[in-house]
């Protein structure tokens, strides 16, 4: 009687020795993919928010990292590179403003800025600020573009599908910048209020008012309400707040005597175009390498977390304050927002 191929196949497969699974690799790659998905959404939002400047038929060649073409109600974006800063701080904003190609006048909203995206990294001529409400949900997106980069001549749109604009917005021009506002949550009166405030303020005034609303602690992947709780207890000076992902990293970093890197700023470069769309899966990601907590601080944090039995499943965030080489550490419960000094 002939042997059954299906039975032999199943037996052969069972004999394949399975290598051990490195769950850390899965975690790391999963986090990186998650970030890419976020950037994909971000770039689409950026392109869509810019689309409102298009009008009937116009063209805006932003130059550098982002190129946009408009035709009717469609936009085609070629995104070569851009930089994002999550939970930007005063120093981040000052650095962007100092190298921007235009005098940046910031809009003021009664909402926290979730992130800033700009392009190109060395001389930004386009800056997008995303705001979130008190629940951490998207509230509004405002894009500022160097007026000199908005062109009126019509060129041929590159091949590939153009993206239909799904949301509406409004825009206006000031002395040096074009302001684009996109939000379903802002009424016409509120937009008008923002516009009037921007027109009556100087660039310096708008910048200082904007900076005053920024967080004074380094926030790395922590929900806004937890960040607010941390902000209430954080002493003046160097503070870093981090969540589950970095809590998991701390023991490994301490074992290898490595610092904790500030992961808020990410540069996306070499973004390939696939079928006329930016494909972030194969983009190159670059981090600034700015140190959030030095190696000795990481060791101190690791020892404290171990002593207090705090691990990645604690459902908490950790606030670290550094002062003259000494580290003070708090644990913030993400559910109750109670703060405990460790």
């Amino acid at each position, binding site marked *: 009687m002939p042997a059954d191929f299906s039975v032999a196949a199943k037996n052969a497969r069972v004999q394949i020795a399975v290598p051990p699974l490195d769950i850390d690799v*899965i975690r790391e790659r999963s986090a990186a993919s998650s970030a890419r998905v976020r950037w994909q959404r971000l770039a689409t939002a950026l392109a869509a928010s810019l689309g409102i400047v298009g009008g009937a038929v116009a063209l805006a060649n932003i130059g550098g990292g982002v190129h946009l073409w408009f035709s009717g109600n469609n936009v085609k974006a070629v995104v070569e590179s851009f930089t994002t800063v999550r939970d930007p701080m005063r120093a981040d904003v000052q650095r962007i403003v100092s190298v921007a190609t235009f005098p940046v006048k910031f809009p003021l909203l009664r909402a926290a800025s979730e992130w800033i995206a700009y392009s190109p990294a060395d001389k930004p001529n386009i800056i997008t600020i995303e705001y979130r409400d008190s629940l951490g949900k998207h509230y509004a997106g405002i894009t500022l573009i160097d007026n000199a980069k908005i062109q009126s001549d019509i060129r041929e749109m590159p091949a590939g599908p153009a993206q239909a604009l799904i949301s509406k917005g409004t825009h206006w021009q000031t002395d040096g910048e074009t302001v684009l506002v996109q939000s379903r949550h802002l009424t016409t009166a509120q937009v008008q209020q923002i516009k009037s405030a921007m027109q009556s303020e100087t660039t310096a005034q708008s910048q200082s008012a904007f900076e005053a609303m920024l967080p004074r602690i380094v926030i790395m992947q922590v929900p806004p309400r937890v960040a607010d709780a941390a902000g209430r207890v954080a002493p003046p000076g160097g503070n870093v707040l981090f969540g589950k992902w970095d809590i998991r990293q701390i023991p490994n970093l301490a074992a290898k005597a490595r610092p904790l890197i500030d992961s808020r700023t990410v540069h996306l470069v070499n973004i390939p175009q696939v079928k006329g769309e930016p494909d972030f899966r194969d983009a190159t990601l670059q981090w600034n390498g700015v140190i959030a907590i030095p190696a000795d601080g990481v060791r101190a944090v690791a020892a404290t977390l171990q002593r207090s039995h705090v691990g990645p499943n604690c459902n908490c965030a950790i606030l670290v304050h550094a002062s003259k080489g000494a580290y003070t550490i708090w644990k913030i419960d993400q559910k109750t927002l109670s703060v405990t000094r460790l």
Partner: protein
Amino acid sequence: MTRWASPDLVAAAIAGEASAAERLVGAIWPACFRLAASLIGDRALAQDAAQEACVIIHLRVRTVRSAEAFDAWAYRIVARESSRVRQRFHTPEAAAYENGFTADSTASMDVWRALADLSPGLRDVTVLFYFDDLKTEEIADVLCIPHATVRTRLARARERLRSTLGDYAIEPHAAPKEVKQHAC
């Protein structure tokens, strides 16, 4: 379809329970790797494909609509990633299934040799049909190809296998049913 993990664990991962996604990935890893290895024929590349599939499963398991839908979804991901890896590295067909494939018996060696003799398209349907006992309509769903194509490929694969493995019974387990094509 083969049950890759306990329904409770899958349900917990879909519900977003803490660490359930990691436990799920740990539980399905052997099945993922062996499926990828069978489809690709190279251990190192199979590890890449299985790992990429596990990353996607870890990341998106919460989007699966129910525990019942998980297995089909996971099969689709592993098959797609295996195909990607195969295309990217242009796996040399003749060398496939030789490096690191444990073959303790003559029967196992026969199986791998016969698979290496098939083109990737025929190999995919053969693996899913004979190794995993998937129905032809399920294979169509996993590979995102028409049901008729699966049946054609399976018929061709059988012809080829008969010429390679004259002594084996390679008859279908059950007559495939006509079903409507799944949207991919």
